[in-house]
């Protein structure tokens, strides 16, 4: 059967190739959409895991990916620091993060506003590869906090000419950015390059190794001045626990203290939360790639069905020679599975090509093509091909050999 099926397919090379290509495109869509979603989420999760903390505190209503604004007030931060047991406060460090957006290297980046004093908690073992970490001397922050600056309507970063003039001496220390090595490479940035963020011109002062939680960091106080006129708010918190505490139990204590308005999550479960946040996106991608695959397998069905129609006489000969109905179904299935197998191989090759293209166009995206996805592609290809051949196989099996032999 394999010999006959192969002979039939190679007899119609172009048609076979087009059918395999159709399957390949479907398989490629499936692999790339899964790889893109999985790769990006895995990369974000890996970066978040790099923060030296055990808990994440989020607004209850926010999607974990799209956490925005600054819903936490100063009272939240004080409360987080005060949660205690008999041995004292549970938090060894409360790490506020204020999120903003910045357009760099051709795409939107999440801007992490962090306290320069806590930058070490984000870096971990990663090195500063160029320049320095920003405003370690807290010149800008201390000037703002001390009230020593002359009052100007709207605050020091209001963008007004008076503010610019009054604070020029100090602004340079606040308007600094630290970026990661991948963003520097992709955007071809250098130290001292200027980036426009929310009406202010920031300067890149440092580059750190890839793998830190954010690609772009700015001083927390600067973002607060720009966005909420200096109010001590935050978008989320990391909590570094006292070393003797068990994270899950501590998370429960925090959660009970804050009630339903706040989500206290284990940082180790951030990956699961990300996937859950993307469940509907995943469902959409699965549905769209399934539709594409279904269309591809319909193409196989048509191809094999056309072969059955074209080869009616040959099928009659096979029946006359003693090939059973099941044998004819098997012949159709083997042909379809061979097409699908070729399609899977083409699809995997196309997926690698598409990954290269995506990385070329959007270098900061990660497309993760895994062995698990390849295995799924093979299974789907083989099963889909076999199912596609059942109807044409059934038609072949139902042929009347006498009529088939007289078929012109």
């Amino acid at each position, binding site marked *: 059967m394999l*010999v006959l099926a192969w002979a039939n397919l190679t007899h119609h090379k172009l048609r076979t190739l087009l059918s395999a290509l159709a399957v390949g495109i479907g398989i490629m869509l499936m692999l790339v959409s899964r790889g893109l979603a999985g790769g990006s989420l895995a990369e974000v999760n890996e970066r978040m895991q790099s923060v030296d903390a055990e808990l994440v505190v989020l607004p209850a209503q926010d999607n974990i990916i799209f956490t925005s604004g600054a819903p936490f007030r100063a009272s939240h931060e004080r409360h987080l620091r005060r949660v205690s047991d008999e041995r004292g406060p549970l938090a060894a460090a409360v790490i506020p993060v204020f999120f903003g957006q910045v357009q760099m290297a051709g795409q939107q980046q999440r801007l992490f506003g962090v306290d320069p004093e806590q930058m070490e908690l984000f870096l971990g073992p990663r090195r500063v590869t160029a320049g320095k970490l920003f405003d370690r001397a807290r010149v800008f922050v201390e000037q703002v906090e001390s009230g020593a600056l002359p009052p100007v309507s709207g605050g020091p970063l209001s963008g007004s000419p008076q503010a610019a003039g009054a604070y020029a001496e100090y602004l340079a220390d606040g308007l600094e950015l630290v970026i990661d090595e991948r963003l520097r490479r992709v955007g071809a940035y250098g130290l001292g390059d200027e980036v426009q963020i929310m009406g202010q011109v920031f300067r890149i002062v440092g580059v750190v190794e890839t793998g830190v939680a954010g690609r772009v960091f700015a001083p927390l106080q600067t973002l607060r001045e720009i966005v909420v006129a200096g109010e001590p708010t935050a978008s989320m918190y990391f909590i570094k626990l006292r070393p003797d505490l068990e994270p899950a139990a501590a998370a429960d204590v925090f959660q009970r203290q804050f009630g339903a308005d706040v989500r206290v999550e284990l940082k180790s479960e951030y990956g699961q939360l990300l996937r859950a946040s993307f469940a509907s996106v995943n469902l959409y991608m699965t549905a769209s790639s399934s539709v594409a695959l279904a269309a591809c397998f319909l193409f196989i069905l048509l191809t094999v069905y056309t072969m059955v129609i074209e080869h009616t006489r040959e099928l009659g000969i096979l029946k006359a*020679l*003693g090939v059973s109905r099941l044998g004819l179904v098997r012949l159709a299935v083997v042909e379809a599975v061979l097409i699908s197998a070729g399609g899977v191989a083409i699809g995997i090759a196309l997926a690698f090509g598409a990954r290269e293209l995506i990385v070329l166009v959007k270098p900061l995206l990660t497309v993760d093509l895994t062995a698990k996805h390849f295995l799924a592609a093979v299974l789907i290809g083989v099963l889909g091909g076999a199912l596609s051949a059942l109807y044409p196989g059934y038609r072949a099996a139902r042929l009347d*050999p*006498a009529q088939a032999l007289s078929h012109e």
Partner: protein
Amino acid sequence: MNDDLMIDVRGLHHTYTHTGVAEPVLHGIDLQVRRGEFLVVMGPSGCGKTTLLNILGLVLSPTRAAALRLAGREMLGLGDGARTRVRREMIGFVFQRFNLLPTISVRKNVALPLRLRGLAADGQVDRLVDRVGLGGCAHKKPGQLSMGQQQRAAIARAVIGEPALLLADEPTGNLDSANAAGVLELLSDLHRRLGQTVVMITHNEQLAVTADRVLRMCDGRFVD
């Protein structure tokens, strides 16, 4: 029941129905063929010869028959699977239009009946291909052969499995006289060597001389 009979057909009727119109083609045929006999059936086009051969070869079920026995076994009422097995194990076909599979080589065409029985095919196929004079063309596709060569390949395919019954439907109908004579000689030779029962349809009077017996058909009946 006579164990010496390869074919024992009694009261065989067949009617084709096209768009509701019945067209009777066989009218109560009785036919007995001994094992090893070479029978030629002659008659004009449309007299029912091919229908009879298709029924004997179990590719067509008769509308009505009292008996249809092959090698003493009743074939009436057999299911599709059992009829397929009988075709595979017992019957070889030679068609007027050769009916080789165009996508595979001559050698693979000839080997097909053995493969369908799950038998190894190597030496036996090569010897037979040589014997029918196609040793140099075994790797070619049927479309690359002359008509005479194609028919010899078809005969090799029909006899490779040494079927007890060989059915040949106008095997020389598409051949010129030289090729026809060669094919007939080949069939006669194989019949002598293998001792199969052969039923051959033709309307070439010259081919009938090789037969043990000649029957003539007209309007769905045997005639004197």
